[in-house]
C-alpha cells in the first residue's frame, strides 16, 4: 500500500492511495465522517431570551457552529471517568453568551461567545457567524456546554466532506474538505487511528470467540 499527498492547503487535502482495496479506503472515508471526534455546543442553558427567535431554534443555530477542536486535552463525555452529568475539565468547555440591544438593532455574532473554562485552542472556527438579531429592548443570556462528539450521533460533529474517486491503474483519490474543526491532515490520521484500533479489537474478539477452532489447519 502506498499513500501520497497530492495537495494540502490547510482547508482540504487530496491523497493518492495505491494498492489500497476499495473496502479499506471506503472504511477510512466512512470513519472520517462518522467517527473522528470534533467539538460543538451540546447543551444550552437559556437564562434569558426575549429575542424574536425561539429558545430551541437559537440553541440549534448555536450548536451548528463548528469549534476548533483540542483532541489532545479532551475526551468524549462517554469515555470520561468523571461520572458527572455536566462534565469536568476533560470533557466540557463552558462558554457564555450575553447580548442586549439598547437603542439600535444589534446582531449577535459567534465572536460574542465568551470562553469560561478550557484551553485557548477551543473557539468558534470563525467569529463572523450571525446568531441572532435583537431589536431595542431585546436581550439574550445563555450558558453553553461545548463537548466532543462524533458524526454518527449528530451531523453537527461531522468533521468535513470526504469523497473517494477511482483513478487509473487501481489508484484512488481520497478528498477531504475540513469544516474547520481540525486540520484536514490531522482528521485523516485520526480516522486511520480509530480504524486501526477497531480492527485490532475485532481480531482480539474473534480470537477469543474462535479459540482453538481458528488454529486448526
Amino acid at each position: 500500500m502506498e499513500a501520497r499527498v497530492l495537495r494540502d492547503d490547510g482547508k482540504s487535502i487530496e491523497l493518492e492511495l495505491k494498492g489500497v482495496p476499495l473496502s479499506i479506503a471506503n472504511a477510512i472515508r466512512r470513519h472520517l465522517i462518522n467517527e473522528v471526534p470534533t467539538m460543538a455546543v451540546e447543551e444550552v442553558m437559556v437564562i434569558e431570551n426575549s429575542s424574536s427567535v425561539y429558545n430551541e431554534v437559537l440553541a440549534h443555530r448555536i450548536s451548528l457552529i463548528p469549534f476548533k477542536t483540542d483532541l489532545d486535552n479532551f475526551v468524549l463525555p462517554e469515555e470520561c471517568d468523571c461520572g458527572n452529568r455536566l462534565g469536568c475539565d476533560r470533557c466540557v468547555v463552558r462558554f457564555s453568551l450575553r447580548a442586549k440591544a439598547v437603542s439600535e438593532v444589534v446582531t449577535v455574532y459567534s465572536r460574542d461567545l465568551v470562553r469560561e473554562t478550557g484551553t485557548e485552542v477551543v473557539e468558534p472556527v470563525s467569529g463572523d457567524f450571525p446568531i441572532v438579531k435583537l431589536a431595542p429592548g431585546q436581550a439574550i443570556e445563555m450558558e453553553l456546554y461545548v463537548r466532543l462528539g462524533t458524526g454518527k450521533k449528530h451531523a453537527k460533529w461531522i468533521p468535513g466532506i470526504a469523497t473517494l474517486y477511482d483513478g487509473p491503474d487501481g489508484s484512488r483519490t481520497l478528498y477531504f474538505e475540513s469544516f474547520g474543526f481540525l486540520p484536514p491532515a490531522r482528521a485523516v490520521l485520526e480516522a486511520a487511528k480509530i480504524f486501526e484500533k477497531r480492527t485490532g479489537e475485532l481480531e482480539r474478539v474473534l480470537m477469543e470467540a474462535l479459540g482453538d477452532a481458528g488454529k486448526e489447519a
Partner: protein
Amino acid sequence: MLFPIRCFSCGAPIGHLWDRYRQMVESGRRPGEVLDELGVKRYCCRRMFITHVEYIDELLEFHMQRVQQLRKSGER
C-alpha cells in the same frame, strides 16, 4: 429568517460569509462572481446565498412598532 449557519445539503459552514456576500452584492457586484471569490464552489451552498430572504428584519420592525403602540396605550 436568519441566514443559516450551514448549507442544508452538504453541511459546510457558510453563515460566516453572509455579511461579506451581502456587502459585495449591495455594492453592485454579480452574486456568482462574489461566491467564486468567497470560495463557495458547490451549487448546494451557492443556492443558500442566492435564494436567502433576511426575514427577521421585518419581524424586528414589527416588534418595535408593537412596543411603541403598547407604550402609547399605556400613557393614555
